[in-house]
């Protein structure tokens, strides 16, 4: 019984990380119609930046802020200087982000080295807590809590604010949105930066949970893809539900079939593709 609870909590905490990533990726795709292949790289960079800031300041909060904002700033720069030049050509933009993936991955390898590293957990969350029969790392509970709070904040942003309405309009029909006066270039930059912020934020949280190493960008990008395929592109709800599902499946999969790696998430992904290609909550 304890085993199941622990594994489930593990899966949920991992799922929250995936949610943060998938939400950003989905948002960027929903509004800009660009598949940001550098999204995992933002996560990686966030983790490494957080690591450096943590080493210097010993403040997890500062690391979070610095990493998330730093990555967002980089994304902003990227969008304004480079992505913007090829608006409207989604494949080209996706390929460009693919090039960025390589650059960031290689530079990160150069700057931080090839050894796996772990971010130290924030003070107060280094120990485990007891929940009935179960002993569970308090940090993982923090991750779950943060994920839920972020999810709620994003939902509130999307549903209850003018900014959210503008974003939703952009997702539904960009031409129409432009027609009613939405400043599309500004919206795009903001959305790209927000997505990157979420990825960088997730990087720091994930870095303390799972560590950071070359290749993490790719692993995480891929899982975000699976989340989006299952949950549906352009849907916040899809990112949340998909994230939970994939987190749980991946975790239980690793527990029972460690040698089959991604195969355990492959099966539900293939099933969704076969049965409902737009995902559980995707827009057609």
């Amino acid at each position, binding site marked *: 019984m304890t085993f199941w609870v622990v594994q489930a909590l593990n899966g949920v905490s991992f799922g929250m990380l995936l949610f943060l990533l998938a939400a950003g990726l989905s948002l960027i795709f929903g509004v800009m119609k660009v598949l940001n292949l550098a999204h995992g790289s933002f996560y990686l960079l966030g983790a490494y930046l957080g690591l450096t800031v943590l080493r210097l300041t010993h403040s997890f909060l500062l690391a979070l802020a610095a990493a998330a904002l730093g990555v967002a700033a980089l994304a902003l720069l990227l969008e304004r200087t*480079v992505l913007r030049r090829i608006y409207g050509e*989604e494949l080209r933009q996706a*390929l*460009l982000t693919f090039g960025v993936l390589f650059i960031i991955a290689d530079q990160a390898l150069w700057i931080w080295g090839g050894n796996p590293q772990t971010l130290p957990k924030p003070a107060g969350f280094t120990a485990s807590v007891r929940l009935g029969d179960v002993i569970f790392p308090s940090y993982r509970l923090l991750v779950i809590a943060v994920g839920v709070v972020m999810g709620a904040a994003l939902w509130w942003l999307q549903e209850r604010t003018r900014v959210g309405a503008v974003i939703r309009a952009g997702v539904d029909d960009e031409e129409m949105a432009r027609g009613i006066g939405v400043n599309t270039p500004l919206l795009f930059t903001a959305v790209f930066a927000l997505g990157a912020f979420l990825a960088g934020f997730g990087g720091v949280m994930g870095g303390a949970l799972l560590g950071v190493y070359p290749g993490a960008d790719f692993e995480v990008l*891929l899982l975000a893809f699976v989340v*989006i*395929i299952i949950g549906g592109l352009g849907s916040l709800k899809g990112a949340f539900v998909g994230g939970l599902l994939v987190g749980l499946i991946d975790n239980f999969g690793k527990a029972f079939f460690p*040698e089959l790696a991604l195969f355990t998430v*492959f099966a539900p992904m293939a099933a969704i593709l076969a049965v409902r290609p737009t995902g559980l909550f995707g827009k057609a």
Partner: protein
Amino acid sequence: MRPARLVGIFAALFILAAPAFLSTYYLGLLTKMLIFALFAMSLDLLLGYTGLPSLGHVAYFGTGAYTVGLLSLRVVKTFWINALAGLAAPTLVALGFNLLTIRARGSYFLMITLALAQVLWGIAFGWRSFTGGDDGLPGIARPMLGGWSMAGEVPFHYFAVVVFGVCLWLLSVVVRSPLGRALVGIRESETRMRVLGYNVWAYQYVASILAGFFAGVAGVLFVYYNGYVGPAYLSVVVSGQALLMVILGGAGTLVGPALGAAIIVLLENFLSAYTERWLTTLGIIYVVVTLYAPRGVLGILRDRLGGGRRAAT
């Protein structure tokens, strides 16, 4: 296009005569260029002609390589059996994968192809007992063909040249066929094709199977070339490099990607002697090419030389 004909003939002569004046090292490099040219051309069929952007093309390359590696090390050393299996396996994978992926649009297709290829990578990496994991499978011997050993650089070069030549011929037949033209039509306007009565899904599926097959051929060649196969043969870096080769050379031209492959292989070889930052360079080339030269080298040449009568494809 007369200049192109001349260049082609010159290139063919060079490749055939190369063992006479190239050192073993550079001959091997030329052979490697041919192998990746084939890989890039197979991707061009999918991306350049049909308009399906795949980030997972390496799946077929690696499957072909691993099949040959596993069989020749563990089961039997007979070339024909291993080669046949090495071609059948990626074709089967293509038949299966593409059943799921071909219905997907643009970005979904990018994601799904990437994800599926990574599943294979994960298996190659994780299943140590079967695939050798991260270490891969070394010690794969070059084949014996009719009593002739391909172990030497020169015989293997000619072996690769023959295979490349045959595949190039087959691919050019396909792209000039009615099916090939239909693929171009699909790339230009799927809706138009549907409304004209073409079963777009069927054409895309066939194109993807063919593309997978030829990528598999390249994989089989490469595993014999290196005598080794490892998870790197299934990595996204290789997929990414192939994609760049196609775009750099000129998508939808068949020979453009071959040229792109030659450039990238040469560049990697040359730069790796001076710096470890090959991936950064690759990334930068990606960014520059997609920004400033999306039609690739051949595209630019064609524009400069006024298009020509085959501007359609």
